[in-house]
């Protein structure tokens, strides 16, 4: 066990963890930040996506030792009051069904909009094509990203 200093959502945390422990479990089981979701565990579905220095990363395959000192943003840190343009667009388009994959969808979309403020459908599909949703919210995710792009 080692000690790691983590910067998460603008707050400093120190955690005692195994070096090989993925960030996902540090967030969920050690820090109680359960907004980041577990689904596949091997980086295939995107439900666990967080931003690390602004880049979308799959926290289930990101070792805690690799993120010490970096800036980590989780769904809880996107806004304090559901006011991020993506969150507002998500509500306007009634995107969520079960909602479980939605934090991952939104964090991936946030990273996309930072790089590309006005993505086309094709660019959205390319950026979001490996973020899985079993309920089938894709059509509305696409619309919500366009709507948020207009707001930004």
């Amino acid at each position, binding site marked *: *066990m080692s000690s790691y200093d983590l910067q998460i959502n603008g707050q400093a945390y120190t955690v005692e963890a*195994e070096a090989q*422990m*993925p960030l996902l*479990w540090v967030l*969920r*089981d*050690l820090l*109680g*930040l*359960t*907004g*980041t*979701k*577990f*689904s*596949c*565990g*091997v980086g*295939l*579905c995107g*439900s666990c996506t967080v931003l690390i220095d602004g880049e979308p990363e799959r926290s289930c395959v990101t070792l805690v030792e690799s993120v010490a000192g970096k800036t980590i943003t*989780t*769904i*809880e840190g*996107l*806004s304090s009051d*559901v006011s991020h343009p993506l*969150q507002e667009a*998500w*509500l306007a388009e*009634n*995107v*969520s*069904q*079960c*909602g*479980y*994959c*939605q*934090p991952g969808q*939104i964090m991936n979309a946030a990273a996309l909009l930072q790089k590309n403020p006005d993505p086309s459908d094709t660019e*959205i*599909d*390319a950026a*979001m*094509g*490996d*973020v*899985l*949703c*079993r*309920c*089938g*919210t*894709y*059509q*509305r*995710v*696409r619309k919500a990203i366009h709507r948020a792009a207009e707001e930004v």
Partner: protein
Amino acid sequence: MQKQLTRRDFIKLVGAAGGGLVLAVSLDACASDAPLPATVTPLSPTSTARPPFDWSPNIYLKVDQDGILTVYAFRSDMGQGIRTAIAMLIAEELDVDWNSVRIEQSATDPKYGDQLTGGSVSISSHYSGLRLAGAVARQMLVEAAADVWDADPAQCTTEAGFVIHPDKGQKIPYGELVEAAAQKEIPKQTKIKDASAYRIVGTGKGHWDAPQMISGKAIYGIDVRVPDMLFAVIARCPVFGGTFASYDDSAAKTVPGVRQIVALDKSIAVVAENTWAAIQGRNALKITWDEGRNASLSSEELRTAAKERIPQLGSNDKVMDAVYEIPFEAHATMEPMNCTAHVHDGICEVWAPTQNPQAVQMQVAAATRIPREDVTVNVPLIGGAFGRRIQTDYAVEAALVSQAIGAPVQVVWTRDDDLQHDFYHDMSVHYVSVVHDKVNIPRLQSSGSRSPVPTGAWRSVENFPQAYPTQCFIDEMAFERKRDPLDLRLELYSGRAAEVIKLAAEKAEWGKSLPAGQGQGLAYHATFGVTHVAYVAEVVVDEDGVVHVRRVVAAVDCGEVINPDNVAAQIEGGIVFGLTATLKAEATLKDGRIQQSNFHDHPILTMDEMPLVEVYIIKSDQRPSGMGEMGVPPIAPAVANAVFAATGKRIRHIPIRPEDLKA
């Protein structure tokens, strides 16, 4: 015109609504003119400030002094939006502003009748009861206000949380009336709203829980946290029916964070301080499995045997016939199975993301030998279910592990656990036939696997394997008889069925000319015989044989629509769920075990594969008939029929693979 409902109707309707068991019992226990029991929050006798007061005129709701309506959702929400729909019906009849609505998940309690969420019946079976629950409360508030004004209650009206004086000059907010309303008798008759007066029902509402979901605050089963809880993952025999012969846990015990190894009946649980340590501990277990007698079983063997139980193709020259095949299907919910349990002091508390809390209560009680009334089942939000969570296996495991270790524990399934220990949609084969020249809906003779593979409900249950062969075969009949598939269907179907078929065809411009390699396909199904759905799918089949579904036009008749935006969402979702089975994934059995382990070999539909879905809803004043599962069945045949139109190839199995269609 408003419908007059007598008290007897109320009792009858609430009772008939399936959820009113205890309501009916309460009424039976009371004198015939006694009020329904009102819940009064205990007051502190020494309090001088106005004590808090919540008025709960029936089991479905309470109203507080701020006029906030809290609805008790007694069914499980797994994305189909039932919490929101229940609240919409009650809020409509009570006549409150939607912003004043809160939703709490109800207790697991027989007073709600059977709480199994399945069969898409939560609204259809509670429609009258929920409306009356709100309407009765509204009337009692009106009577309380009329007393204040010394006015005729029949002349008072309500609007968005206020009772309005007959001369419209004064109004009183509900919150100020709840104490007086609580003293009123349950009315002997009441009025329910006419559809023309709706302010909430029929408007598009997002899920009430959506803001929590998209900010990471929503609590799903896997997010439940209990003080001092531990985490466990379980090693289960990969072969169905097998168990462990022996195991060596010495390495597992040295994994940092691992606390304890618990042998259950046929499996071994690794309990740790966090989920990750539990997973590492399980990886370190050395287990010798006793695979039992199913260790050589395969899908191929089961399919061959099933085909021997249906008529052989071409065995009757009076009919045209075909055989269609459907494989095992996994549920693959995004939130894997999990459950949190705490056995202590002779009781058991359970937090189960389940469709079936009363069965969880019963099975946990049986397994732990704790009396059923001492097993509390809380239902958090659910990250997809699709029928998988009608089962109770994950909850029984958690209770047994907690009982063994004497601490609260969350059992988490990894994705491979989830795909390999599912209760699968059964494999099936279908002999479809019709007498030559007869214009009949074809006859279906089917067989399932009859195997030791655990099977269970999978979104739309028997409707998927009914719709796929039937609707594909109707297209085969049309081709054989040189008929247009739309015209033949309009000869086979009438009434509401014909209306959705016509609407979908019209909106999709059925029969329009398309380039080579593209095609339209039509299919219709009434899931559970109640909700009518027709699809026209447009596909492109590329030179590698890959099917791209570009567009699906849907027409739906589900009776009165509570939440039109959610009807559309359920159609979109049903299409996506069905397309995964039609084009991408199956569960295959080899050596007695399921071969798939994660989304690389059980791929689900992705965003770039999502067709444009257009949903057209028939306006109807029929009783609402359910939407959760109805979007799934017609998509596989609509796509298969479109593939035939595009390529001339009739594929009689799913998933349709590129190798089926390569030139």
